[in-house]
């Protein structure tokens, strides 16, 4: 007889698996689900998978912010314009899309407001009906204004949790990130830690209070009339011609706002770094987890994907959206960059979005059945690790293939294709900072001693000087990208355990989370990098690539 939620860790033949297999379709049958953040990259793929492959769900309510367009208009746009749903339409035809539309409901709302910003009449109805709330909303920006990060990644989940607790039978599936573990090396357990990654005791509530106090202090300082006066004086000193005094004050206010944003971004980043997180995003996500776990009477699952990347097969091979995971660094490897500094034996944890959607399905089904664990990590480093050095090599090879077949000029086809970026573990003797200083220096030399010597050549020399400036700025940008990605490329190796997902025996093969099946060579060369080029970089030369949709 099956015992619900009973693990058999002591029974070696079953390898710690649950006794009763999990049927995704059965678990979701006639269940009403409320989803926040469904318009994001992971949200759309998971939603399409749920609606297409699990036909017997109840209603799926999407909380969408209404701005210029209403929530319903945004939902219509999502279904009509997104390549994800266009692929569903192509597979199942209009009848399948109609069935999907019939189950979907758009709700005007905003997760950063109490009661999710939902109107009272709808709220009552939802509280009675909802079985599962999936919170995919969040701000995926590494170092944003800390106020925005706190509102979306900390306060938002708390409002969602409040809503879930006010419902009759709802449970919460909160999507976080595996990088809440910060810079901690080694194997990362599926647990919510009490210490910060820097091994300091951390009270999440006190930390939030400190954060909001700091935000308030900064805001007060910025809006202080003395600060504005100082800015006005600074503008005057610098010789900015802003017309009258009122106009100057207006410019000073704008400048103060932009400086406030920069100081808010610095505040979050510095605090995160001091506690052992890489950036504000992971810091804010970790605070949210800690606060959610402390909530009483909440049936909760925390789902932590690693670096979510292009799809292997669902909705179609190569589908990707946005450009803030490995995109910038991979694009960089297709340029004239030769050496990328990486850590020895460092593993990069990439996971295709369709695998994340499968993992989400499993975690949600387990939560609905009451067989769940608290934390589900979803990555590849545990079962099928790919070292950064191999990832760089595969990226370089994918770019090589691209430039050979689709290079626009002889230089791209014959030289750039053979340029081949390499991962290096030792610090290069002549690094990017040296190149930047050199190009800067050449620009300066051209402008100062050289230009006055050759007044007749002024326009052409000025042009050359400007080119060196542009080059120096480009190198500085590359340095900034490498700095952002340093935690993923350098340092000690980290492996994210994915035992919780492995414990469930999923009956339906299409929902099984099996990252050991990923063939990294084929994935990087035929799915991920062509997908990035087509869907994120919008490279026109890639129109005929293998990725479809």
């Amino acid at each position, binding site marked *: 007889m099956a015992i619900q939620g009973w693990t058999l860790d002591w029974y070696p033949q079953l390898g710690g698996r649950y006794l009763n297999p999990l049927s995704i379709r059965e678990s979701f049958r006639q269940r009403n689900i409320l989803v926040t953040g469904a318009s994001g990259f992971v949200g759309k793929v998971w939603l399409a998978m749920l609606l297409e492959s699990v036909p017997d769900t109840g209603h799926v309510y999407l909380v969408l912010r209404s701005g210029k367009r209403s929530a319903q208009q945004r939902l219509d746009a999502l279904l009509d314009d997104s390549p994800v749903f266009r692929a569903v339409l192509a597979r199942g035809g209009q009848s399948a899309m109609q069935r999907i539309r019939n189950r979907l409901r758009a709700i005007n709302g905003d997760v950063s407001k109490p009661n999710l910003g939902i109107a009272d009449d709808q709220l009552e109805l939802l509280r009675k009906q909802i079985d599962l709330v999936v919170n995919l909303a969040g701000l995926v920006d590494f170092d944003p204004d800390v106020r925005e990060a706190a509102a979306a990644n900390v306060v938002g989940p708390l409002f969602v949790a409040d809503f879930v607790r006010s419902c009759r039978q709802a449970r919460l599936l909160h999507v976080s990130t595996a990088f809440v573990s910060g810079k901690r090396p080694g194997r990362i357990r599926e647990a919510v830690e009490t210490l910060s990654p820097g091994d300091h005791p951390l009270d999440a509530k006190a930390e939030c209070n400190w954060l909001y106090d700091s935000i308030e202090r900064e805001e007060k300082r910025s809006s202080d009339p003395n600060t504005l006066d100082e800015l006005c004086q600074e503008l005057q000193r610098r010789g900015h011609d802003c017309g009258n005094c009122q106009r100057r004050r207006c410019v000073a206010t704008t400048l103060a706002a932009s400086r406030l944003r920069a100081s808010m971004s610095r505040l979050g980043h510095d605090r995160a770094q001091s506690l052992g997180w890489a950036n504000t995003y992971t810091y804010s996500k970790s605070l949210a987890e800690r606060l959610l776990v402390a909530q009483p009477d909440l049936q909760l699952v925390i789902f932590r994907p690693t670096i979510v990347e292009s799809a292997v097969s669902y909705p179609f091979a190569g589908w990707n959206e946005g450009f803030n995971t490995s995109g910038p660094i991979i694009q960089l490897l297709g340029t004239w960059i030769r050496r990328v500094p990486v850590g020895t034996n460092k593993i990069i944890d990439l996971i295709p979005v369709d695998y994340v959607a499968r993992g989400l399905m499993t975690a949600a089904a387990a939560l609905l059945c009451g067989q769940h664990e608290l934390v589900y990590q979803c990555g590849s480093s545990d079962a099928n690790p790919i070292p950064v050095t*191999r990832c760089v*090599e595969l990226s370089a*090879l994918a770019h*090589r*293939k691209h430039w050979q077949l689709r290079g626009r000029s002889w230089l791209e086809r014959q030289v750039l294709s*053979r340029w081949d970026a*390499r991962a290096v573990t030792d610090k290069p003797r002549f690094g990017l900072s040296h190149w930047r200083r050199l190009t800067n220096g050449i620009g300066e030399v051209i402008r100062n001693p050289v230009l006055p010597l050759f007044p007749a050549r002024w326009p052409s020399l000025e042009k050359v000087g400007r080119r060196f400036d542009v080059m120096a700025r480009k190198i500085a940008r590359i340095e900034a990208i490498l700095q952002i990605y340093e935690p993923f490329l350098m340092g000690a190796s980290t492996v994210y355990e994915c035992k919780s997902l492995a414990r469930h025996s999923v009956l339906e093969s299409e929902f099984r989370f099996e990252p050991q099946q990923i063939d990294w*060579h084929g994935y990087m*060369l035929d799915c991920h990098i062509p997908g990035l080029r087509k869907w994120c970089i919008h490279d026109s030369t890639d129109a005929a690539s293998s990725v479809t949709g």
Partner: protein
Amino acid sequence: MTASSLRTRDVSFQIDRKFLRGQQFATLLFFHLHRPGFRERISHALGHAAITVARSIKGLDGSMFGERLSHGLLGGMSQDRIRVLGEEYARRILAPALCDGDCEAWRALRAAGWRIRLVSGYLEEVVSALCATRGLQVDELVCNRLEYREHVATGRLLAPLVTTPSETWQSKGGHWIGIRNLEGDI
């Protein structure tokens, strides 16, 4: 030769006319010239040229030791790079040179139910990519295979080594067809 004239079920195809030597030199040189580092490219290409000359002088062509010596320099190259370079070499150099008539005969034999064995001294990565490029289906691939450890070539060739055509196919039985690289029909 037609399919009906063959008496046994197996057919062995050879795709290298002189069975390696000149072609293998070019293939391995191609691999060395496309290593990731510029310095590596030059040093390995020179090393490969030196080994080839030494093999000729010492009369090691076609010997197992000679084969191992030539492939030894591939050590340290990633499996991913060897796969991509193999595909590239097959697509750009070998595939255009294969005769359409030979490929047709191949397909006809296979359609008639013959079991096709492909024998080649090229690396497996090159031969399988060549078959994929020309849409040729193979039942058995007899070619040289490199040993890999953690996706990096050790430089060792795995047994059995393919050195001369006769040794390889005679022990296997069946009919032997040499695709005459690349000009004329079978």
